[in-house]
């Protein structure tokens, strides 16, 4: 029903519009000073919600790429790592990352938000979502053979040590001091390296410690593809991640700003070009054009543009995305040829595409294209991320494996982790009898 045909509804809408719009805005004047921080906060709150929504995207995508007998386990890992990670980041991670940073190596204040000012609340909320994103990347790579409690222990340690320490190097100093990478002029606008590559390198360490799923590779190295159980879910997860990325990159302005237009346009173009890049390389090599690879290509494009979304012209953003798509496909093949089992392609999508995107942010810096000094700084940042996160995560997962046990037993792999780790299954109508005798 059109509002015009209903006078009461029309009056209500006009009144609501008048109440929502400030008099200054209606008069075409600039907003008065007190409005600006409020608008910034509103935009960051919306952006934080969008980034939080990415968790749903990760859960759907990772679960869809796993077998039905592990669907609950994957979703539970995504759900609970954001819960525990949020608490851990509030208590320790935020202070380590954004607290007073006199040495350039880690923050030393604002643990549990002690001494916080008004702006810290929004900042913590927004940055918690970033930390949760970095942590959850490993879950997909390590799916279908990781013990639940061991994974969560790793997730908390990533949130309190691995992620925030590197974050303090690149983004630290919000309360005084400056991270050593930031002081070199390292560009990583929203975290191609800080969030995604770090998550990717952690995932790589986890995959190495775990080993491949039972029967994923034959003894002579032949691959046995393990299809996900719900590709529609994978595509929906991809779409949700794409939507969330408008908050991830757009919110990284730190406030409501006209630059958000360029940033989110770059984000969108790069994602589209990422999928196109993946399609292109598959078509050129006469390989099947798979939905999973296409979705991963677009996510690779999103990861790639995250570092330079604010400092790149749109045509370079598209180029960054296109190359990201190719990097994702080539990276996946490389890992498979090495006998590594990354269930969702997280190492390629986040680790490698993140590294490329960080390099691209230096190469395609608007107004200072191909500056070798800037490119060198970007390379230092990429290497620092790898040399910190990968060995630290390798050691962490090794210790977890030797103490609490990281890998599920082969019998649990046979029955599925839904039953062995959670005692419930995602699809009880047909799973309970098949997998474990229907025992409760």
């Amino acid at each position, binding site marked *: 029903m059109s509002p015009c045909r209903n006078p009461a509804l029309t009056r209500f809408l006009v009144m609501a519009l008048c109440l929502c719009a400030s008099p200054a805005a209606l008069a075409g004047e600039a907003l008065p000073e007190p409005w600006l921080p409020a608008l910034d906060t509103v935009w960051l709150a919306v952006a934080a919600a969008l980034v939080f929504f990415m968790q749903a995207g990760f859960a759907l995508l990772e679960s869809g790429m796993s077998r039905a007998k592990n669907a609950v386990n994957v979703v539970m890992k995504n759900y609970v790592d954001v819960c525990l990670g949020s608490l851990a980041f509030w208590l320790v991670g935020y202070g380590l990352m954004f607290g007073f940073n006199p040495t350039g190596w880690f923050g030393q204040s604002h643990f549990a938000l002690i001494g916080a000012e008004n702006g810290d609340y929004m900042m913590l909320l927004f940055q918690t979502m970033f930390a949760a994103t970095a942590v959850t990347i490993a879950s997909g790579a390590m799916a279908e053979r990781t013990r639940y409690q061991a994974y969560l222990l790793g997730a908390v340690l990533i949130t309190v040590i691995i992620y925030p320490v590197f974050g303090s190097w690149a983004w630290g100093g919000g309360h005084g001091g400056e991270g050593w990478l930031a002081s070199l002029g390292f560009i990583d606008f929203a975290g191609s390296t800080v969030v995604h590559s770090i998550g990717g390198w952690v995932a790589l360490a986890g995959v190495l410690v775990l080993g491949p799923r039972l*029967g994923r590779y034959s003894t002579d190295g032949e691959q046995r*593809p393990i299809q996900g159980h719900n590709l529609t879910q994978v595509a929906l997860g991809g779409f949700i991640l794409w939507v969330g990325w408008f908050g991830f990159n757009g919110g990284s302005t730190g406030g409501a700003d006209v630059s958000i237009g360029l940033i989110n346009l770059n984000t969108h173009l790069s994602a589209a070009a990422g999928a196109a890049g993946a399609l292109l390389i598959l078509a050129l090599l006469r390989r099947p054009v798979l939905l999973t690879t296409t979705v991963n290509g677009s996510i690779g494009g999103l990861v790639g543009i995250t570092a330079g979304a604010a400092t790149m012209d749109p045509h370079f953003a598209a180029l960054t995305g296109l190359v990201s798509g190719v990097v994702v496909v080539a990276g996946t093949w490389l890992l498979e040829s090495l006998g590594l089992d990354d269930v969702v392609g997280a190492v390629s999508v986040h680790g490698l595409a993140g590294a490329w995107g960080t390099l691209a942010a230096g190469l395609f810096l608007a107004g200072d294209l191909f500056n070798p000094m800037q490119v060198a700084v970007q390379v230092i940042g990429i290497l620092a991320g790898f040399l910190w996160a990968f060995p630290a995560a390798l050691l962490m997962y090794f210790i977890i494996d030797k103490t609490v046990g990281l890998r599920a037993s082969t019998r649990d792999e046979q029955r599925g982790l839904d039953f062995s780790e959670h005692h419930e299954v995602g699809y009880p109508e047909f799973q309970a*009898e098949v997998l474990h005798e229907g*025992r409760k």
Partner: protein
Amino acid sequence: MSALPGQRPEQAEFRRRRRAIFTGLLTRLDRDAAVQALALWQAEFSTRPVFALHDFLGRVCQDTGSMARRGELHRALVRALSLDEAELAPDPGDMNGAAGAGVRHPGPAGALPAGARDAFEAVYHALMIQAEGRGVDTGVRVRVMRRLVSLGLPPAALKSLSGWVAGEARGLPEGLTLDTLRGLLHLAYISACEELGPVSADHLLAAALREAEKQAVAEQYPPRGLL
């Protein structure tokens, strides 16, 4: 903690922990199930870190079908571990014999229910026929034989089971527990995974179960009880 004459302190501590675990188990399980659960603890969990108590509980609850009572059992074990020696149940003795005989799981997994043996043979043969159809039956057999030692059977039982897997003996050896049969079927699944990949192995196992369920043996014991 009182060490017996000639007993090292670590032995005394091990004995005290075994008594404590047994005391806790007895509060929630019948004696047979508690003995078999204790055998599992001694064989697989007694040397692991303290966190492994959760895994032990999970295995016991899973195999006794008492997931809903996991919390109760956990509290009982924790309480028993803090009791004075005078309050603990008598030491049931070394459990190696029980574990070595294939009694590795507590409760119903240890005993062999009527019809389980026939059901197992039906599933296993159906699986091997499926594997033969894919040209991997020999590979699966060889891989199963290489892994038989992991079932923890005494040498004589291991030798006769190996002969049966190789196709040299017609009848499945006597005296195997339900847990051993489950373990053997799992070894066949792992071997099929390695030969064909996990997706094909899942299909193979599901097809073998369906085939066994069509046979009369399924009326006495459900083949899926072997999973």
